[in-house]
Structure formats: C-alpha cells, structure tokens
C-alpha cells in the first residue's frame, strides 16, 4: 500500500476495525464492505446505531449501499476526480477556514508549510504532466519535486523495481531541516501547491468526470466536513476497488491527503481502514512473499543501471535515511542476515550480503505471466494461489502454465491451476490437447488452519495465532513441513558443491527442530527467529530497539520483533479482549500500537483534542505519554522537544511529529519522493475508457502507467467504439477470491452456484436482454459467457453529456469445483500501476451481446 506509505510512512491500515464504532461518519469508497468484510461491518452498524452517518460511494448499489444513509454512484475509474473534488471543496469551505483546529493540525502534523523546490511545475502548468517527465521512458525524474535547500536527492522514482509497499527511501532523506512557512502563504509551500493543483476539481468538474450530480457531491462533501474536527472524526474504508487501477496508488494517497487535511489521521474513529482480502495478506507483505522486498519492508538489493547495491555499504548508503525511524536500517538488515546465514555471516564478508539475490527488472505477478509464456521461467510453485483464474489475462496465464517444465500445486482441492492441462476451456474446446502440453504437474495436498499451528496478520496489522487441533488427513501437510523438508533435501543435494549456488544454499541456517510422527518443524522455533535473539547466547530480544548492526543480534523480521519478548511468551497467542484498544488480544506491529500515528490524537502540546476523542496524551507529572494505546513515538519524548543540531534518527524529530517513519515526522500532503507518477494525486482515466479527460485533455491517461502490450495482451484504444461499456469486477459474500476455498464447499457453492453479469434494465432494454438470458462479454483478450442478472442496482450514468453503461462481473468463477462459470479475468489485461505494479481490473472496457459462445466451453481467446 504505497499510497498510504508515501504520505504517512507505513503501508498498513492506520486504524482498527473496532475504532470504526467511534466514528461520526464512515465513508466506504472503493470497497463493498458489507459483502466482503461482513464481520468488520458490524462496527459500522454500531457507529450507525450511535448516530454516525454511513456513506457508500460506488458504481453499484450493493449490500453495503442498502445499509448506508447515502449512496453516491460514480463511474468506475473516476474516484480520483471525486477525491480531488473533496480536497478542493474542503480547502475552500467556510468550516475549514474558520475552525482553527484544521490549521493547527495541518501546520504541525503535515508538510503543508514546507517550501518545495521553486522549479517544481504541476499538471496545471504542463498540460497534465509534472516537471521531470522523460517521455520515451514513460517515467519521471524527481529533482524538482524535492524540499527546497536539500543536497542529496532520493532516487526512489527512478527505482526500476517498483514495490507494493513503502521502502525506506520512499520516506525521503533530508540533509537539512525543511524550510517552513507557518503562515502557509508562500507560493512554493506545499499548502499553496495543493490548493492550486486541485483548483479546477470543482463540483461541476466532478459531475462531468464521474457522473455524480453536483448537489449529491456537495451533500457528500458537507457531511464529511461536518463530521471532522476537534470533537468529531470521519473514517474512510477502502479495498481493492481503489487499488486495482493504473492510478490505484494515487487514489489511496489522495484519501490520505484528504484525511490529513481534515485532521482525521491518528485519532479514534478516524483514519483509513484498508480492508484486505486474505487471512494474512498483510502478514505476507510484512514478511513478504514478494519479489522486491525483504522482511520488514527492507528493499531487496538492486542491480540496475540507476541503482546498484553492489556492496552492503552501497545498499545502506542508498536505503538509510539520516532522520526518522529508518535510521536504524543497518541494525535491521544485518540482524536479518545473521538470522538467515548464521555463522556464515561475518563482518569480513559483509555479513553474507552477497548471498542475497539482487533484482534488476520486474518480477511481479503480472510480469511472471509473460515470463512463463516466453520460457524464461521454467518451474513454478503455487501454494494456495490460483493463477489460471486469478491471473489477469487468464488466457495468457494458462498458456504460460502450459509452457512450464514443471508445476507444483499445493492446495486442498484440484483447483483450475492444477487441472488446466485437461479441463481448461481451450482444452475442452479442442484448441489445445493434453498430449501437446509438456508441463510435469504435481498436486500435493495441503493442510488447513486447524490442522497446523501458526499466525495470520489481519487487516489491521493484528497478528493472531491459530492452534493445531488435529493432524492433516492422508498425505496432506503444512507448507512449513513441505518447505522444511524440501530445504533439507536440497541442502543434501548440493552438499560439496563449492560454486556460488552451492555456497548460497549451504550458508542458509535450516536447523529447525521437528516434532510428532509427521516430523513437522516446530513453528514457535520460527517465531523465535522472527522475533530475534542475541547470537552469543540465543536469548530473545525484547523488541527491535535491542537490535544491533555489529552481528551480535539476529532477527528475521524487525517490525515483528517483540512478538516473543521472552521464553514461553508468544504474544500472538494473547487472548484477553476488551472493549477499547484490546492490547492483550493478539499482537499488533509495530510494538503493539493499535492506532498508528496516535501522537496526532493529542494537540501539539500533548493534550487530547477533546474529551470525546481522547486516545493518548502527555502526562507531564510522569514524564511520559499515556492513554488507551501504546504511544506511536518514543514514550518519554516531551511534546515541546526540539531536536539539537545534527540529531539523527528519531531524535531528529520534534515532540509534535506523529509520522515517525517520515524523514521530517510529518504527514506528506506533497510526496517529495516515493511515488513514481507525481507528488500530488491527479485524475487520469483508466487505461481503457470510453471517455476523454476534461481535466487534462492532452494527457487523458496516466503518463507513467506500465504497459505490457503484446499480441497476446492487446489494449482497447481510448473510446474504442467496439468496446463501449465500462466493466468492473468484484467479489461476492458467498465466495472467496479465485474460488479455491469456496466453489468446492457445498454450503457456499449452492448460495452462488454460477457466474453472472450484472447489467441495468436500461442496457438490457437496449440490447434486448431478459433477466437470466445468456450473454457474451468480450475484450481483445478473451470472451466469456455468463447469465445476465438484470437489476436496477446497476445504473447508467450521465458523463459529460453521454450516457455510460456499466457491466459488473464477479471474478470468482472458473471451470473446476461445484460452482462454475466463465473466468472474468479472461477479459482483463496486464497493465500496471507504476507504484504498486497492480493491474486494472476495476475499470476497463468491454462489449456485451445476447447469446452464447460457439464452443459452449465457458470462455475462449478472442480470435
């Protein structure tokens, strides 16, 4: 979530689900919370019962809308125009300009007063572009985006290996304290730049772009404004309907900008709740199974033209800021190297730094699909992931699978990815024969929670332990078992190999104790390593403040350090809940903080902004921060602390700096580094769109979106009349992701047994379609058939004088299991947000007609 990371410092939800109950207004946008997070939604209803206003901004009228006070339908893909409109409305509103709370919060806690390099130019000056654009490479250089008077320039935006999460250099490096204008009047200060940037995002413009009538938009804006301030807080909830756009990161970062302006970050009932969709999708980014990250958001070492981390020293020079929490990067990285390479990590060999692989190009999930098809990748492990359904341009994904030498699928059911070679639509249609597919396929049965122990990290960064009840059935085993024993066998196979590849695997520490008849590795031994210990005596460290950069400590993931602070105390197993912060229920990184940046819940002097919204505050008598939560800053740092000259790390932040991971401790309205497509969120149309962009006619689509266009991944031109409808994909309550955990479960399959496409009665009339008819949906990537669900919950919108129809398709379905249907991702394209490398499945274009596919096989590549 670099959208949050670049402005606030951490790529995680800033608040908890429970805190929504304290909200005065909850805006659900880019999320269908009642359907996809029903249990989290109970806190929305609690708030509602206490008098809060609930707003759903979404193209469809969903089960979330049905429980909202206000449903604001917008054209899919226009979210940033709406958020920009809200920013503009807020800045020019009477309330914002008359209540001193807003100015006080913004001046102290954000970079609004910071003076930016006077050479900076924005889309208002440069016809839709920021200064520094390199057209033939579709990227920006960021020199002009920097704070004024700084010597070193962060290289983040040149970074070729884009990241899903914030990296240290994303948070900026300062060589001098920022120059400030506390009056916010300087034309080069952030506040004025923001104001100018959004000046044309008027309610009229919002209506032209999004189809939201002016009066409705004004009601939305007024409701949010009225429910923000000293005594009231508004929360935003979003999910992948914001993420999955070529501008997804900037949509989220626009929300962060708005919430900073409204003074809603770091406070109970405020904040931004990112609603994530898998049991430990947060954990698997914290302890990343991602190509460009090491545990705890340390970047992978790079080997590109622009960034070359040849040595540990080079790596640290590039990735270690002088100020803020990331100053301790050397201790975190070297402790990781000690955890991974043990005795083979010595000061003489840079603690085994060279054993880490270096990355050069894009190896994200989207890039992996053509890598398979093109024969670069020859073997693939799939553990609980179903790319034959979940991959964008899934036709291409299956072609990739068919070109592998070998494929290992570890799952509980025979999902599409395991069955593609005999059951895929192209095989059923006779276009591909199993005897032409070379892939050697292994299906290894997996264990589920209940059959193994371990931890998940939920959507609010809360690590919770699940116990083991019974052994898994038959040959089913945990991934931990599989990985431990595979590693053991590989170490054996490479024994005596003195080449680099032999030394790499030999250096790896891999000596976990095992237990039970199945010889499962002891999971808490892994937790121990993640928490960290002193190398000499193996004693657990209490938290990451104990980590050192001299090789005396080992730690597998520094942000989780503290999860097992002493022998026998696994804090993920804490199970004493309460009605407030529930600090004894699970363990929340970092340091068990529940509401991030909670320094902002108190005023600059350390007093609660109001009795109603108190959370943590300064206890002058005791000389420490106190309250309901763990303070998210050094516990004894007084509110009036001013850093001495030359201070480094957190000592360089004053006592009123809530955003401890940022170089200057401030929330960034203007992201001087960290975002590849501009320091300020800007509305660009989706890559495939039926309409132009009235804000920036010369630059309708993202100038930095990453394009993977090739004959098997073609794009629709802007306004292509062959594909006139906006298509958006989504989930249903009754199913889960690509269906691997729901379409095979009878009790869920019966509830939504078949794929369908939702269309409005208006579009159905135009095309002569009745409810329940078969329809064919097509793009240049593929065609699928589905049953039509004609419903008033879908509606056409008037956009800039044109009627735009929207089509909605759940993406759960596939050809295996009990509940089946055409694969929605056969329609989508590989195209990437430049920051997160995520695809654009929430807004692209399609055609739709009544009828069925000739093959009757569910879906096929469009010829």
């Amino acid at each position: 979530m670099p959208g949050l990371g670049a402005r606030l410092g951490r790529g995680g939800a800033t608040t908890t689900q429970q805190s929504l109950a304290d909200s005065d207004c909850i805006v659900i946008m880019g999320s269908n919370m009642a359907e996809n997070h029903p249990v989290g939604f109970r806190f929305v209803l609690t708030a509602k019962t206490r008098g809060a206003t609930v707003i759903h901004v979404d193209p469809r009228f969903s089960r979330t809308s049905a429980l909202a006070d206000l449903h604001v339908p917008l054209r899919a893909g226009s979210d940033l125009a709406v958020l920009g409109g809200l920013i503009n409305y807020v800045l020019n509103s009477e309330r914002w300009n008359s209540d001193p709370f807003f100015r006080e919060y913004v001046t102290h806690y954000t970079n609004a007063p910071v003076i930016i390099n006077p050479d900076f130019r924005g889309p208002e000056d440069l016809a839709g572009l920021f200064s520094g654009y390199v057209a033939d490479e579709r990227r920006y250089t960021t020199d002009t985006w920097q704070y004024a008077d700084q010597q070193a320039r962060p290289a983040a935006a040149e970074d070729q290996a884009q990241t899903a999460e914030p990296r240290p250099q994303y948070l900026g490096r300062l060589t001098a304290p920022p120059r400030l204008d506390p009056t916010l009047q300087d034309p080069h200060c952030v506040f004025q730049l923001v104001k100018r940037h959004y000046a044309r995002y008027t309610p009229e413009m919002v209506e032209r772009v999004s189809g939201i009538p002016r009066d409705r938009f004004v009601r939305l804006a007024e409701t949010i404004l009225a429910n923000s301030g000293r005594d009231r807080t508004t929360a935003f909830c979003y999910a992948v309907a914001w993420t999955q756009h070529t501008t997804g990161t900037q949509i989220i970062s626009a929300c962060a900008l708005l919430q900073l302006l409204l003074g809603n970050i770091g406070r109970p009932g405020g904040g931004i709740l990112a609603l994530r969709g898998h049991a430990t999708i947060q954990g698997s980014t914290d302890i990343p199974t991602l190509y460009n990250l090491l545990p705890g958001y340390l970047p992978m070492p790079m080997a590109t033209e622009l960034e070359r981390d040849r040595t540990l020293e080079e790596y640290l020079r590039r990735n270690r800021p002088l100020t803020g929490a990331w100053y301790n990067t050397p201790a975190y990285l070297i402790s990781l190297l000690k955890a991974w390479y043990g005795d083979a990590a010595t000061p003489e060999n840079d603690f085994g730094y060279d054993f880490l692989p270096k990355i050069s190009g894009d190896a994200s999930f989207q890039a992996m699909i053509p890598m398979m098809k093109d024969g670069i990748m020859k073997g693939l492990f799939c553990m609980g992931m179903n790319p034959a359904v979940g991959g964008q341009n899934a036709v291409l994904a299956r072609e990739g699978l068919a070109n592998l030498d070998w494929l290992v699928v570890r799952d509980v059911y025979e999902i599409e990815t395991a069955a593609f070679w005999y059951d895929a639509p192209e095989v059923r249609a006779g276009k591909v024969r199993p005897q032409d597919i070379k892939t050697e396929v292994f299906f290894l049965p997996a264990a589920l929670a209940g059959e193994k122990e371990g931890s998940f990290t939920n959507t609010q960064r809360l690590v919770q332990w699940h116990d083991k009840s019974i052994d898994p059935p038959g040959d089913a085993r945990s991934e931990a078992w599989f990985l431990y024993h595979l590693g053991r066998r590989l170490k054996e196979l490479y024994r005596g190999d003195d080449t680099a590849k032999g030394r790499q695997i030999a250096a790896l520490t891999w000596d976990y104790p095992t237990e039970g008849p199945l010889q499962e590795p002891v999971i808490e031994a892994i937790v121990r390593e993640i928490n960290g210990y002193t190398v000499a005596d193996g004693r657990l460290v209490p938290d990451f403040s104990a980590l050192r950069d001299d090789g005396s400590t080992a730690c597998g993931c520094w942000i989780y350090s503290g999860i097992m602070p002493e022998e026998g105390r696994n804090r993920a197993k804490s199970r004493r809940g309460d009605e407030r912060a529930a600090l004894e229920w699970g363990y929340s990184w970092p340091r068990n903080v529940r509401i991030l940046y909670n320094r902002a819940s108190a005023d600059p002097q350390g007093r609660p902004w109001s009795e109603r919204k108190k959370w943590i505050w300064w206890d002058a008598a005791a000389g420490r921060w106190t309250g309901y939560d763990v303070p998210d800053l050094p516990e004894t740092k007084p509110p009036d602390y001013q850093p001495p000259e030359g201070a480094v790390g957190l000592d360089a932040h004053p006592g009123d700096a809530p955003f401890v991971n940022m170089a200057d401790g401030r929330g960034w309205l203007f992201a001087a580094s960290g975002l590849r497509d501009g320091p300020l969120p800007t509305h660009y149309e989706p890559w495939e769109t039926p309409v132009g962009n009235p804000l920036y006619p010369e630059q309708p689509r993202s100038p930095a979106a990453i394009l993977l266009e090739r004959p098997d991944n073609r794009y629709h031109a802007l306004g292509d009349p062959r594909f006139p409808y906006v298509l958006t994909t989504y989930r249903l309550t009754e199913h889960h992701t690509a269906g691997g955990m729901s379409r095979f479960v009878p009790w869920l399959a019966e509830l939504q047994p078949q794929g369908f496409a939702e269309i409005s009665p208006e579009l159905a009339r135009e095309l002569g379609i009745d409810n329940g008819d078969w329809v064919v949906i097509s793009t240049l990537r593929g065609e699928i058939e589905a049953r039509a669900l004609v419903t008033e919950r879908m509606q056409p919108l008037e956009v800039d004088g044109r009627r735009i129809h929207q089509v909605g398709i759940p993406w759960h379905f596939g050809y295996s299991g009990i509940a089946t249907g055409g694969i929605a991702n056969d329609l989508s394209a590989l195209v990437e947000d430049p920051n997160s490398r995520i695809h654009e499945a929430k807004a692209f274009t399609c055609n739709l007609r009544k009828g069925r596919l000739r093959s009757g096989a569910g879906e096929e590549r469009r010829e």
Partner: protein
Amino acid sequence: MGIGGLLKTYVGMVPNPMSSKMRQVRSRLRGADVTVSVCPYCAVGCSQLVYTKDGRIIDIEGNYESPINGGTLCPKGAATYGLLHSPHRITTVKYRAPYSDHWEDRPLDWAMERIAQLVKQTRDATYEETDEHGTTVNRTLGIGHLGGATLDNEENYLIKKLFAAGLGIVPIENQARI
C-alpha cells in the same frame, strides 16, 4: 368462552409426549476438546473455536471472547468446517507426467525427491552468478513461486528464506498485487 374459544386457547397446547430418544438429545459439543483458531478466509481476522472428538473436527464456530467478531462469523467463516470436510478435498499426491492425459497416484516421498531434483536441475541451468556488469547477483529467474496470503506468517518466512535467500529465486509473489 364457547367451545371455539376453548379450542382456540387450548388446541396446540395439549402436550404431545416426548420420545425417550428426544429426551436424551444433547449438543455434540459435550465432552469435546476445543482449540482456538482464526478464520482462514478474509483479513477481518475472526477468532474461531474448533471442537474435536476422537481425533476428528466436529464443529467450528465463532469465539465470543474475540474483540473483533464476538462469536459471529460470515457465511464463509461459518463454512470452515465444510472447507475441511468437503467431498472434493484431496488427501493424496497426484502426478501428471509430461504430455500425459491423466493423473497418477504417487507416494509423497517420491514426489518430494522428484521436486527437489527438478528444482536443482532448473536452478543449475538458469543460475546467474554475476550480471553483465560483473555485479554479483546470485539469482535465478527460472523458478517462480506464487502464494502466501492464505498461508501462515511463519510459512511465508520459510518461503522467502529458502527460495530467495537459499536458492536465489527472484520471482516470488503472492496475492498482494491481486
């Protein structure tokens, strides 16, 4: 009160006798062991109670103690028992040879050894020790990994550690970008 009124009052109140079997009805949770789990579906993080008897899971339901779900579950969470006990669950190893049109059963140990051999073979053939500038890179793009968001944190740790730090595999990805 006429007979109609009497009937209206008392019809339906004449107690039918309870069968002896009915008298003995108890919940199947009686005498069961219970452990605490977390719902494996979305990221809300609902706490679950898993009840077992004689080495079998007999019921999974919400945990009242949780400050998040307070005993409740959504339909997917409520179906967790069905996820474990679906008739479609596969508990043996299946193997499809290149160009074959059918699955074969193979022992787990055989599959583990074959996979280890294939990993070594592909890694050896695609390993890059240095790049074109002579920078040490110690990596391979020839093997990929997908998945992690539905696994345990500790398993994610082992994936990144073994595959990236031990084998130099670069394309390791999960659902975070989906």
